[in-house]
């Protein structure tokens, strides 16, 4: 392409983006002559250059727009219509520019439609209101510059004259001490400096080996200069993040029109700088997030007023530096995420089971929006929800080593927080060794290093073939780098464990050795190697050798396919039931008593222990063992399973609120990743049902049954009073999982339980001649929810006085207030077993006191 044309395209595109932003500003401040002057000049320059380059279509358009803007300058009132028209014209100009870029000539066709409208507008306004003398409006700052351009256009001046005039103009409006350098030149400079850094590193390495070398001092100087140069060149690549935001005011303005909303876009910290490469890569995700806020977040004006908020919504973008990172926040003051709908959608999409969804915290639920193909927008608008979803946003950000988080407050809005590195070119990396080869691991994802040895504090343990590490009350899944890279025998018990975090996933990467941390220059991977997901690039170390850079994302993906993953949000796991992320659950398969394999969700298990049989004590007919300074009860699954007489007794440790119990097992068989489909429900207490796992019918053990066996004792010991009469509780919950989980728990608290699956079934049970002392009802139920059910109970004389305890997955202030109005005895979170038992006991005690 002609150099001149290319120059024109870059410059014009740049100008147009500014015009976009300026016009939106202008619409708000129509009296700001300065802004108008800027716009006018930009459009004028475009016009002038077009004429010179022989682009008649563009020239005609720009001319028509300029004429209309000239009228504004002469005092014509600025209307939204007129601004829209000019924005439309600018869009058309952009379209033509794109064509020119692709085909190097103006596309065929005409723009009479737009030109006509522009002319009409300009003419009409003049006729309608005679232009008042624009006394208060000063002339645009550089009319001379415009004249120069005008002359160029008419005089058909040779090339230098144009550049001259263009430079003159810029020279006046931008400070004289900045020059334009092509991106290519800067990139080349950066590459060269990277080479220099590498060479310096090599030299330092050599001199290190020769103690008193004459090179030492000059090399030190060279090293310092190199560092300075590196910093300087990095600086030239830095651009204010505002460059990536330039288009946003226009986008938001257009969205407002399309959606009939009023939105104010605030931008803070636009001057915050980051590497242009990174800037390019975050542009699209940022735009998408802002669109999302405007489309889904901000409510219509009427809805906002009804909610007691100002009619005009606000989207706030802010950026700041923090360490070697830049933090970008995008916040709206809209309605917040609809968690219930996300829950429903997650279940519908098969991303999680109902029970899992109910067990997740609100923050986890929010994260579902980053799942591929996840969109809760009931209708797909043209603005967002077009399949290019939040998953793309997240993967784009993660690709550059960043993270994205969000916080949502119902009714108050959503805030996305993006953390990205300032630059991609040079990163700090940990050099590790595996199978005699070295690899670099980006320091960013390394949490800590753990030395593992068979006799030491940290040991690599195995559950069947899956290596794990106990690290501060967590089971950390391990993966051998040797296995990942298929570079040889794995399974050594000695080694270093690099505790690595990718997103919310934490795992340990087992390597043979750890060397040091080095600033590495990332070189792109050879195209022939790019398909290997576990590598993200190559680099040259100080000693001159080439090593591969490991991509923690690639390993995390591999791990989630092959082994179980520990979620950082599920540390002390029993409290919240299953927490598996996807539709598959990690199950611990074991044998106890009968020959049939049994399984529990791994997430429930706190630890696997082997206890010396001699340490098991029998007290009051119960097996106890001293464990971490406490006496821990040991339970057997059934009477068949016995304790070993000598040697080591394997147990599964479950912890709940600081208390632990051990479940005696004969043997741990395996950890498997399976969908947990309970195919046959069980009548037997302690067994949820049966599922096929790895081809074997497997008993799914109900830990909810065993926990209270251990803990209810403690309750009894504390509450000296013994229940006189077993109360009967009616449990209403649509989820079979919870009925199965809670029934034994309530029984263990000394009550009889009748469990039903709906409000209708509950009325039926209440209509029978059975007497109930207490109703425990779920709030979230199809057909009739817990509130309505309770209101109905209250309205019927027979049940008006029946105490009701509500259980719910989401305890919100609203719900509690509503519950209080209805007259719930208590409101308990679904997973708060202790709380539920306490509420049942307390209610019983109240009754007794009253009696």
């Amino acid at each position, binding site marked *: 392409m002609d150099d001149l044309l290319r120059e024109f395209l870059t410059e014009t595109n740049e100008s147009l983006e500014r015009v976009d932003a300026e016009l939106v500003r202008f619409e708000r401040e129509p009296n700001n002559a300065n802004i108008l002057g800027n716009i006018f000049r930009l459009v004028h320059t475009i016009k002038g250059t077009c004429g010179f380059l022989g682009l008649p279509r563009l020239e005609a358009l720009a001319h028509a727009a300029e004429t209309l803007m000239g009228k504004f300058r002469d005092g014509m009132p600025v209307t939204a219509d007129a601004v829209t028209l000019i924005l439309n014209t600018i869009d058309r100009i952009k379209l033509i520019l794109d064509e020119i870029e692709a085909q190097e000539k103006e596309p065929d066709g005409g723009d009479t439609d737009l030109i006509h409208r522009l002319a009409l507008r300009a003419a009409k306004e003049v006729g309608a209101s005679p232009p008042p003398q624009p006394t208060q409006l000063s002339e645009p700052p550089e009319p001379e510059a415009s004249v120069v351009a005008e002359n160029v256009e008419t005089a058909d001046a040779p090339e230098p004259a144009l550049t001259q005039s263009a430079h003159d103009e810029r020279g006046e409006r931008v400070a004289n001490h900045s020059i334009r350098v092509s991106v290519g030149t800067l990139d080349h400079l950066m590459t060269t400096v990277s*080479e220099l850094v*590498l*060479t310096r590193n090599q030299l330092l390495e050599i001199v290190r080996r020769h103690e008193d070398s004459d090179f030492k001092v000059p090399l030190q100087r060279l090293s310092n200069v190199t560092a300075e140069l590196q910093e300087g060149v990095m600086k030239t690549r830095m651009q204010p993040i505002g460059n990536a935001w330039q288009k946003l005011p226009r986008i938001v303005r257009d969205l407002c029109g399309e959606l009939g909303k009023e939105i104010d876009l605030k931008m803070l910290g636009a001057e915050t700088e980051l590497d242009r490469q990174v800037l390019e890569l975050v542009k699209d995700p940022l735009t998408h997030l802002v669109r999302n806020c405007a489309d889904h977040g901000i409510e219509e004006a009427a809805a906002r007023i009804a909610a007691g908020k100002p009619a005009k919504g606000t989207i706030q973008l802010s950026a700041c530096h923090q360490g070697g990172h830049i933090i970008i926040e995008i916040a709206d003051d809209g309605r917040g995420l609809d968690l219930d709908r996300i829950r429903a959608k997650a279940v519908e999409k098969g991303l999680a089971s109902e029970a899992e969804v109910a067990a997740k915290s609100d923050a986890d639920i929010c994260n579902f929006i980053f799942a591929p193909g996840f969109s809760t927008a009931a209708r797909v608008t043209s603005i967002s929800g077009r399949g290019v979803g939040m998953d793309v946003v997240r993967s784009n950000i993660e690709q550059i080593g960043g993270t994205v988080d969000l916080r949502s407050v119902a009714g108050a809005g959503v805030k996305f927080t993006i953390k990205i590195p300032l630059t991609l070119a040079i990163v700090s990396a940990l050099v590790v060794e595996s199978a005699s*080869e070295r690899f670099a691991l980006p320091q960013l994802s390394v949490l800590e290093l753990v030395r593992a040895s068979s006799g030491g504090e940290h040991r690599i343990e195995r559950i069947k073939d899956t290596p794990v590490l106990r690290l501060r009350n967590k089971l950390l899944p391990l993966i051998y780098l040797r296995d990942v*890279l*298929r*570079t040889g025998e794995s399974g050594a018990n000695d080694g270093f464990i690099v505790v690595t975090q990718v997103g919310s996933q934490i795992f340990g990467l087992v390597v043979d050795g750890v060397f040091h941390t080095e600033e590495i220059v990332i*070189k792109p991977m*050879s*195209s*022939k*190697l790019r398909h*290997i997901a*576990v*590598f993200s690039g*190559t680099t*040259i170390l100080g000693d*001159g*050798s*080439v*090593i*591969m850079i490991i991509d923690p994302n690639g390993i995390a993906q591999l791990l989630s396919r092959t082994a179980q993953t520990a979620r950082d949000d599920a540390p002390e796991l029993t409290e919240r039931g299953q927490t598996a992320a996807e539709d598959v659950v990690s199950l611990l398969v074991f044998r106890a008593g009968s020959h049939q394999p049994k399984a529990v969700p791994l997430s429930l298990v706190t630890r696997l222990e082997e206890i010396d049989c001699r340490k098991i004590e029998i007290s009051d007919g119960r097996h106890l063992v001293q464990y971490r300074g406490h006496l821990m009860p040991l339970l057997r699954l059934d009477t068949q399973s016995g304790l070993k007489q000598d040697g080591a007794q394997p147990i599964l440790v479950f912890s709940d609120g600081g208390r632990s119990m051990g479940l005696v097992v004969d043997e741990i068989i395996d950890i498997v990743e399976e969908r947990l489909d309970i195919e046959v429900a069980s009548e037997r207490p302690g067994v949820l049902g049966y599922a096929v796992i790895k081809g074997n019918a497997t008993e799914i053990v109900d830990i909810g049954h065993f926990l209270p066996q251990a803990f209810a004792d403690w309750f009894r010991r504390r509450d000296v009073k013994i229940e006189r009469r077993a109360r009967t509780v009616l449990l209403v919950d649509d989820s079979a999982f919870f009925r199965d989980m809670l029934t034994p728990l309530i029984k263990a608290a000394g009550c009889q339980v009748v469990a039903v699956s709906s409000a209708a079934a509950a009325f039926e049970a209440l209509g029978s001649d059975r007497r109930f002392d207490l109703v425990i009802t779920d709030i979230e139920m199809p057909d009739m929810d817990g509130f309505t059910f309770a209101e109905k109970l209250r309205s019927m004389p027979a049940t008006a006085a029946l105490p009701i305890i509500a259980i719910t997955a989401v305890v919100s202030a609203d719900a509690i207030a509503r519950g209080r109005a209805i007259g719930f005895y208590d409101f308990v979170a679904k997973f708060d077993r202790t709380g539920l038992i306490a509420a049942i006991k307390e209610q019983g005690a109240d009754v007794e006191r009253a009696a």
Partner: protein
Amino acid sequence: MTAMNDNLKLTDYVTFTTAGQLFGLPIERVQEVFRPTRITRVPLAGAQIAGVLNLRGRIVTAIDMRRRLELDARDEGETLMAIGIESGNESFGLLVDALGEVLKLADSEREPNPVNLDRKLARVSAGVFRLDGQLMVVLDVDRVLDLSAEAAAA
């Protein structure tokens, strides 16, 4: 006249042998020849890729020509030579057994692949020269570097 020119048009070929076979590469595609040192093996890469190495600050992807052409495997410890090639802003090194001389050959002498030429060779060959006592296979550099097509075909 044109025929004359064609007859006279000469091309320089860098020649090398691998597993006893003589090959030629048009000299304009060859950047340099070098003795490869410290090749870093890349786990999980295809067998044709011997690894990556540092050549004066550039990262070069080394392609083992024996494996690329599916010829007999090399004995351990044999010394190698490498032919440096640029393609699409990337550097490659073809690992060969030994380098030969640079030959100036007339384009008109180049013959199409014999129909019975080994299929693996035919895929990367741009023709054959009959030299004194042996055949020289002219390699099409782009096809040699196109590992993906090969993998897909395999």
